[in-house]
């Protein structure tokens, strides 16, 4: 039976560029949510987001590359670079054919799409039509393709687009590709850069965004009774997944083992989360991992801070874990890095892995008021020193698509 380990990791998030910045922010309980600055805000009623601070793709990429890129791909390339260098892989031609890429995204190149359509519809801009690179810039597989080009990887390379579960599905499916023998190494994760007026305005219409208030940093309050909705974010999380024996043989650092993956669909409502199928997804992940529910120490929750999600997710966890649910440390790191849609699950998997490595559980920030419907241990506001051997990370997407990863100490 082939096993899968994580031998490299990278992140770009509202807490900064790189895994150290992400982890320092999470461990400090610091929110990366602020007033929107990456796009104009004239059309927005609620201009806050978890933006990546000072993200300048030109600092990492050549002018030629930049012309071909959307912001989401740039973030994927930067996170993939960190993961790739960390993994320290040197591949032969034959090994390149056994190395693939699977990066999820909910929307693809939202920034370039918004800009191109704006050029077309707003004649005051003086452009007659979208730039000819618009299609390769905005296609959802652009991030996967650009990463495969950068490192000359020739194995199975594809994209998964399952809204807020994209990153989790991508890592789970990539792990399955290694288990099944289709690949030996996979660069996997998620990337998203949706902070453009067209997208944010459309999200406003769903009435699930937290109002800015006077203090944007505290706008996202998962599991807290005074929660008021989610805050959109951006970023990328990328891991290098590797067949375990191969990684051991070459002396790689084994950050964690991906032991279980569950994927189910509600087959019910487009936006209202169900209970039965997320429960089954968690059980699938535990069963594949060979872990009993009481062996899980930490849950990185989907925890969007919408009224519906947090209460439903609490119910889901009680179903799966029964009495052990009260002993779980549960946190929603979205309270700090926001909801980066297709990147979220991947950023959260990196956070979950760091929790195991560092023996510190990141908190749920902005937790103020207990909610009778959410009565578990959400590690409020302050990180907790705690040995974590096994953990799960949940993603429950619009469209009723549930993805759960289980990882353990390698």
């Amino acid at each position, binding site marked *: 039976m082939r096993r899968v380990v994580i031998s490299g990791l990278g992140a770009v998030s509202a807490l900064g560029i790189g895994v150290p910045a992400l982890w320092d922010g999470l461990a400090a309980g610091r929110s990366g949510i602020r007033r929107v600055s990456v796009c104009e805000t004239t059309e927005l009623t609620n201009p806050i987001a978890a933006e990546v601070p000072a993200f300048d793709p030109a600092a990492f990429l050549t*002018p030629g590359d930049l*012309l*071909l890129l959307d912001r989401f791909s740039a973030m994927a390339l930067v996170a993939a670079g960190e993961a790739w260098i960390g993994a320290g892989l040197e591949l032969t031609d034959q090994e390149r054919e056994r190395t693939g890429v699977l990066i999820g995204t909910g929307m693809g190149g939202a920034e370039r799409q918004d800009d191109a359509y704006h050029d077309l519809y707003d004649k005051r801009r003086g*452009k*007659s039509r979208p*730039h*000819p*690179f618009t299609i*390769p810039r905005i296609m959802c597989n652009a991030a996967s393709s650009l990463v495969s080009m950068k490192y000359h990887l020739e194995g199975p390379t594809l994209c998964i687009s399952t809204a807020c579960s994209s990153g989790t599905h991508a890592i789970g499916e990539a792990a399955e590709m290694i288990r099944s023998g289709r690949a030996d190494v996979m660069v996997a994760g998620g990337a998203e850069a949706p902070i453009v007026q067209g997208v944010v305005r459309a999200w406003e219409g769903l009435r699930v965004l937290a109002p800015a208030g006077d203090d944007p940093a505290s706008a996202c309050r998962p599991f807290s009774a005074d929660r008021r909705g989610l805050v959109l974010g951006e970023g990328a999380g990328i891991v290098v997944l590797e067949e375990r024996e191969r990684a051991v043989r070459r002396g790689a650092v084994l950050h964690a083992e991906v032991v279980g993956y569950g994927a189910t669909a509600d087959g019910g409502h487009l936006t209202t989360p169900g209970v039965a199928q997320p429960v089954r997804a968690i059980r699938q992940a535990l069963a594949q991992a060979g872990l009993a529910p009481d062996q899980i120490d930490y849950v990185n929750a989907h925890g969007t801070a919408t009224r519906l999600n947090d209460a439903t997710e609490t119910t889901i966890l009680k179903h799966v874990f029964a009495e052990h649910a009260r002993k779980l440390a549960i946190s929603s790191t979205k309270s700090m890095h926001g909801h980066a849609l297709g990147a979220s699950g991947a950023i959260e998997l990196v956070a979950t892995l760091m929790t195991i490595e560092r023996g510190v559980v990141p908190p749920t920030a902005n937790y103020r008021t207990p909610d009778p419907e959410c009565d578990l241990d959400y590690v409020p506001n302050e990180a907790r020193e705690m040995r974590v051997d096994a953990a799960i990370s949940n993603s429950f997407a619009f469209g009723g698509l549930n993805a759960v990863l289980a990882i353990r100490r390698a």
Partner: protein
Amino acid sequence: MSELDTIEQQVIDLIARKERIPPGSITLDSTLQELGIDSLAGMDLLFDLEETHKLMISDEVAQQMKTVRHVVEAIRTAAQTAQADAATTLQP
């Protein structure tokens, strides 16, 4: 400076800027390939020229372009056609 010289210089300057090479190294007979302009870069170059001159190069003409001269001639021809069309439309 004649109209042709202007277009010629514009094309050369634009290529020089996009490819980061000295304008002096580009001649009318330089091939796009030797200047490092692949199919994607060619599309970008034409897009900028079309937007600047407010004209359209047909896909058929664009696909035949191999040298800087081809690009210059295509722009010049399209500009003349556009001018002629404008003159026609002005007639009662």
